[in-house]
Structures are given as C-alpha cells and as structure tokens.
C-alpha cells in the first residue's frame, strides 16, 4: 500500500432540496395507489411521460392527467449490484424499462422474478411499492404472477 499523501479535510456541505411538485402533484399522489400517470396536452394532444405541466410543442399549460396502462413489455434491464449512495441500504434491484400498451416507456424495478428467468420481450404488469423508508418505487412483475 502506497503511503497516503498529505491532504486536509474540506468544510463539508450538504444539499437537501425542496423539490416543487405543484405541477406534478397528482403523479406523486397516485403512486401511493399503485397507479402511474402521464399528462396529455389538451391543445395538441401530445402525451408526456414523465409527466409535465407545460407542453413544449404548442407552449400550452393546459394539460390533463391520464393513467397509463399497467400492461407492458420488457425492453431492457440491468441487475444493479453496485448501488449509489441513498440506495445502498436496499437489496440489489433490477432496473427495467418497459413499453406499455399506450406506447409509453416507463422505468421501474422488476420484481417477483428470478434474474435467470428475465427475458427481453416478456410481458409485465406495472404497479408501485412503498419501501420501508417511505419512498415509493414503480415496479413491474411478470404478467400472471401473484
């Protein structure tokens, strides 16, 4: 082991932000019910997921909330063994992207399946789950599983 080189410790700084969710409040509330919502522009009909309260296409801020279909197909995934700070207290999780019947891609944790049984193209059912620390995650499980 090489000798540690001289250093001094910096003054620490911690950021914890208050993230405004006024325009996306419904998304966060519906997560508690196991539902995932997108927004649709009432003027031009464009669908936004993740949801946004302003339409970049026609510049309207008149948007409506639409619930996304729970039926989805797995497009890709990764088994996250090395987790970032803030997530290292959880068991390793599978991050997946699935495309649902509305043609919208959603990222979530793929659960209730063995890693070796996961296949790109498999049918999934979307839901949400509250973690022990209170944070909510979007989840997928294989269609038809309990």
């Amino acid at each position: 082991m090489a000798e540690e080189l001289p250093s001094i410790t910096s003054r620490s700084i911690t950021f914890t932000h208050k993230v405004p969710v006024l325009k996306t409040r419904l998304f966060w509330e519906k997560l508690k019910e196991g539902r995932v919502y997108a927004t649709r522009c009432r003027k031009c009909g464009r669908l936004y997921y993740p949801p946004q309260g302003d339409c970049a296409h026609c510049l309207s801020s008149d948007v409506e909330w639409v619930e996304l279909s729970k039926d989805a197909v797995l497009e890709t995934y990764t088994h996250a063994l090395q987790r970032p700070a803030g997530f290292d207290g959880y068991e390793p999780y599978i991050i997946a992207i699935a495309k649902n019947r509305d043609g919208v891609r959603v990222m979530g944790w793929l659960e209730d399946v063995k890693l070796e049984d996961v296949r790109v193209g498999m049918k999934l059912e979307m839901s949400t789950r509250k973690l022990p620390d209170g944070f909510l995650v979007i989840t997928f499980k294989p269609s038809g599983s309990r």
Partner: protein
Amino acid sequence: MAKKVAVVGVGHSKFGVRSDATIQEVAFEAVKGVFEDAGIRQKDVELSVVGTAGTRTYELMPAVPINEYIGLEEKGPLRVEAACATGSAAVHTAYTNVASGQVDVAMAIGVEKMCEVETATSMAVGGRAGNYLWEFHLLGTSFPAYYALHATAHMAKYGTTEEQMAKVAVKAHKYGAMNPYAHFQGEITLEKALKSRVITWPLKLYDCCPISDGAAAVILASEDNVKKLKVEMPVWVDAMGFSSDTSNICRRDDYVGLRAAVRASQMAYKRAKIAPQEIDVATVHDCFTIAEIMAYEDLGFCEKGEGGKLLDEGQTEIGGKIPVNVDGGLKSKGHPLGATGCSMIYELTKQLRGEAGKRQVPLRNYVALAHNVGGTGHYAYVTILRR
C-alpha cells in the same frame, strides 16, 4: 465566411488518482505542456475556455481559480459543461470563437478531479446524469446502469456477447500500457475481464472505465495566425458536429445506439465532405465497453449490430481497417470528465503529426475522428481533424 482553424498545440497531464495535486495543479501540467508544444505563451492567447463538469469538487465555481493559476486571468474564462463531453464542448467553444473571427488564438483546457470523494458519492453523482426527479430519485440509477440498459438491449437484439464487450477492455489495456499518461498501465486477459465482479449486470468491473483525475489542453488558431506563429505542422479542424438527446432515457426510441452520436457524426461527415471509410484513426467514447461497440455502429465504421464482429476480426486494432482508441481509450487511460474531449484531440493530433511512437497508426488520408459523448447520449460531439 468561417475561418479555417488549426490545432497548434496540445498538452496532457498524467491521468489517474491524483491525490498529489489540486485541480489547478493538475490543470497546470496540461497547460505547461500545451505552451511548450505550441511554442507560445499566455500573451498570445486571447480566450481561455475552461471545461470542467465540476460535480465532485469542493470548488463549486472552478473556472476562475483554475484560470488564475495558469496565468490567464484576463482572458475569459468561459466555463463550459456538457457532462462527459465537457472537453469537446470546450474545444467547440474555442473553435467557434476562432472560426467566427471573434479571436485569433484560443485555448481549451479540460480538467477534472473526481477522486476526492468516496466511490458511493461518485456513483450518486453519476446516477444523476439523466433526469434526477424521474430516474435517480425514483429508482436509484447509477451511471453504469444506464449503459448496462444499452448492453442488455444490444445483446438481445443483435446477439452481442459479454466476450465481445470484454475484447474492448483487453484492447484498451493493451494500448493503455503503451501510453505513459494512462491511468492503467497494464495489459489484461480476456479471462480476467470476463471473471471480474459484476457492477450492474451485464457490465462487470472491466467493462467500466475507472474514476480518474486529469487534464488536457488544446490551443487553436486561425489560418493567418498559424503562419504568424510559425507553426510547423498545423492539424486542421475540418469539422465539428454536435447534437443532443432527451434527459429521460424513457423518451428514447431504442437502447441499441445513441441518436445524438449518429446525428453529430452525420453533421461532421457532411461538413468535412468525407466518408467514415476515409478515417485513419479514431478515438471513441468507451466509458463502458458497450459504448465502444455502439460507437462503431453509430459512426458508420460497420453496419448496425456488427460492432462485435469488428472486434472479433481485430479491425479496430493498429493494422486493422480503422484503429480505435490506441491511446487506451477511456477504459484504460481514464476518464476525467472535463479532460476527455481535449485528451482525444491530443491523441489524434499526435497521431496525425506522426508523433505517437509505439502507438503510431499508418496514415493514408491524414484524417482522424474524435467521438465524445456526454451522459448516456445526452450530448455528442464528433470532431474531424486533418493534417
């Protein structure tokens, strides 16, 4: 009418865990090198562009402290950030300033200190490279995870294998061992790469570039000044292409390539009026091994889905059809975010001048290409150089 712009000097620091030096001190090494190479000094530089992502440093507004330390306190600085493509964004800013006639001589300095914080903290910073609220906050993405999503999709669609990805790492380490500036200086075997621990499946340790500190610098000058400064062997910037993409990865059409890189390369090829087959040597953004395979395809070095085959045939080694990352690439040389884009220009300038020593590629057309991606295809810059 835009002016012709040339690279008239390049400088490079040692890449690695640089706990021996602050960000300014590492930057100084590259700046000393670039001045010695160009044979000019601070008084000749009209604009300083500092590229640093600055996401892991105690110096939250680092451009001015860096600029002061290198003696350019009156010359800008313009601070630019484009995630992992920050160095190319700095070169692009310097380039457009010279090409437009705003200044005649500009320096792009790319620098990053990444190893002063813990790895878990670094992972949490990298995991925020997409869109914090909808990705990291909800699902704990990490930067390797984003590229792992691409690797899984590429494997599923084209049959690309973990072994083909490992071949990128083996090649990178082979050339990194010949590059005195590289973070890693040792060769590895295919078996070692394949047996390394899983970071985020299907990516293993040797599929990932290291976390590194380092700096590189480039001086650009207009055609008139190339003569005035008596530059013996200018390397011309034929074209720079750029593009970008959505922050949210869910808003992309597929995960088997990077649209921003395709668009940036098409812009660069069109502006330089060349085809991919004319390129003698390339540096591509191999932050993860799958990224190099996608780069081959996005840049048109092979057909879509055949990147793995190019590796099997050894076509991207010295002596192959298109040598790629013969400086060790991000994988072995290291990837200090702000420095990488400038480091690519360093390597290609040395190659085009015929000064790359053991790693020199044969030159036929005297044309080279740099491909630098920021985030997971969030930014892309493609630069074409010609001697």
